[in-house]
């Protein structure tokens, strides 16, 4: 989430009312608000020439767009090939054991959300996870437990 939050109308003004601006508008909303709500999508459509079915189709097609708010900390477990062959699944199990959440879920205290990501591109450090914007590499189940418990 960004400090400077633009209104939906400001965002539309910045990127244009045409259908071709839909992705950029959604990216901007997510950047400013952290996720995209149904109401925000409807407001976009009211103030532009983008149809509701179009914007919803785009928002659900691209994995970048989140349609629900995430917890305070976003854990992203890399599922790239290098991480897979070096045991990324074990890390998911550890997180499940420690925080009782599966992929796409948020802890009941709203502290953590768990996601997977196709590849973070730090393959030499596999297996890796990213918590918020920090990458943790060469992980083992025990190292991960220490990191999670510290948070």
């Amino acid at each position, binding site marked *: 989430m960004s400090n400077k939050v633009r209104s939906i109308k400001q965002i539309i003004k910045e990127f244009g009312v045409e259908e071709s601006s839909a992705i950029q508008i959604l990216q901007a909303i997510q950047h400013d608000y952290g996720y995209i709500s149904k109401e925000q999508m409807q407001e976009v459509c009211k103030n532009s020439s983008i149809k509701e079915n179009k914007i919803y189709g785009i928002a659900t097609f691209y994995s970048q767009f989140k349609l629900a708010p995430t917890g305070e900390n976003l854990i992203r477990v890399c599922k790239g090939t290098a991480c*897979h062959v070096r045991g990324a699944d074990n890390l998911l199990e550890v997180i499940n054991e420690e925080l009782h959440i599966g992929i796409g879920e948020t802890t009941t205290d709203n502290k953590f959300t768990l996601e997977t*990501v196709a590849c973070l591109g730090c393959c030499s450090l596999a297996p890796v996870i990213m918590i918020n914007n920090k*990458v943790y590499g060469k992980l083992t189940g025990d190292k991960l437990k220490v990191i999670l418990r510290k948070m």
Partner: protein
Amino acid sequence: MSKKIILKVGMGPCGIAAGAQVIFDELDVLIKNFNNIKIDYTSCNGFCHLEPLIETTINGKTLIFANLLPEKLLFLLENINKRTILSKEIMVIEKETKLKGQNRIVLENCGIINPDRINDYLEKEGYEALKNILLNNKTAEQIIDIVKRSGLRGRGGAGFSTGTKWEFARKSLDEQKYVICNADEGDPGAFMDRAVMEGDPHRVLEGLIISGYAIGANTGYIYCRAEYPLAIKRLKQAIADAEIANFLGDNILDSAFSFKVIIKEGAGAFVCGEETALIASIEGQRGLPRIKPPFPATKGLWGKPTNINNVETLANIPWIIRKGAESFNSLGTEKSKGTKVFSLAGKINNAGLIEVEMGISLRKILYEIGGGSSTTKSIKAVQLGGPSGGCIPVELFDTVVDYESLMSTGAIVGSGGMVVVDEDNCMVDLAKYFLQFIQSESCGKCTFCRIGTKRMLEILTRMTDGKASLEDLSKLKRLAQNIGVASLCALGKTAPNPVMTTLRYFEKEYLEHINKKKCSTGSCKALMIYIIDEEKCIGCTKCAKNCPVNTISGILKKPHFINQEKCIKCGKCEEVCPVEAISKS
């Protein structure tokens, strides 16, 4: 003034993840007491396994200080000229030895220049190719001819002749044309394009500008994954600096040629690496591919003739124009010219980026450059080309790297990701992994890819769960063949490759899963149990104490037992056993 020693901290994402930012900040403080030393940063030099690292040149020798720890930095600064003393505490490597077997064209500046300074690029003959073209009034046809003669083929995976592709777009007559740089590097395990964009962004720009000139386009797009924020930031900086220097904008270098570049951020969809899906995404639509023809060269972005090249392809262009077609086509094999960048990852010692001449054998890459297996087990196979590629077994490691040779094994050069697997990895599980990826990334437009890959994944899951029959195996083969033939785009057509190649070389493993309900690598958890060897167990109770689900029982100093029904197969007991009495079976 005596010459300053410049310490360049490698600040690629890999380096930063390994702690390069801490190193840089710490150096920044310490450096104030050392007048003869300056610090700077560069991007990834490819030696990811040595991160965090510093590169420097002392007495004409380029050295790498590797695997650095912040607490050793003061020692490093104090003894910078005393290599024997340094080597006692810090890993000092001569860069030359690390580059043995490599031939760097695309990566020639990566890890050497500061990517945020255009002058660094200019000092390395940057923009000389563009100047050469515009100041000597070279025609588009002349440029296309050079690229054609160079033998350069698309580095995104398909391997189509770049010069011929340009010629098609050139010959499509229209007032408005576009060029696009495909930087949607989506293959898991591949990070070559990211490294080039972050390490040498102007090189990509120069290639794109030249491609625009050659086909007659005035606008270029760079479609980059949103997962690469640093690449986007550095490209934006590069575009701004190139505009100031008039390498971009109106009447570039006082010629009649005008060109602008727009960055489009992807929104996370693997299928957008496919040309027509990428175009749909730039147009603001869902990234769905469409049937070709018409090819983008005649009907592309906004219906106009469009040329799309991958990052690495474009990064080759300035070098080819500067050095001539012959310098490039003298490298490589008969049909595959030049070099190729690969990312080495998985169970390999020297993980990182390498650039090698086409025609080198896989064995040389994996053992001589890659340093062999990073585990106690030996290498079993290498996976090339990600979800569209295939697995090549160790018996075929004498295969040389070129488009045709690799294709004959069932794999592809692909974008250049090489993931090494060892004896501990199960090939059925690996095939399942790629199918999972494809399933979640299939755009859903055509039935073969949408439903076919789902059925394949279900069969593979039954196999790894020990519930598959021999009939499943023949179904799997039939599905793989049909999906390969009938899918609409390359994503679907190549989706069966990981299954086809593992079936071809590791059918034994499939049969073991089906007939014996067994996975001898222990990767498939449903098929594996932990057992305690009664003879070896000393009854120390460590395993019982550490078991997270309290499923191990036994009396002190007597052999212990695992209740298999409750065991979650986490492996903790095996890890803590002091006498190695616990093993997978």
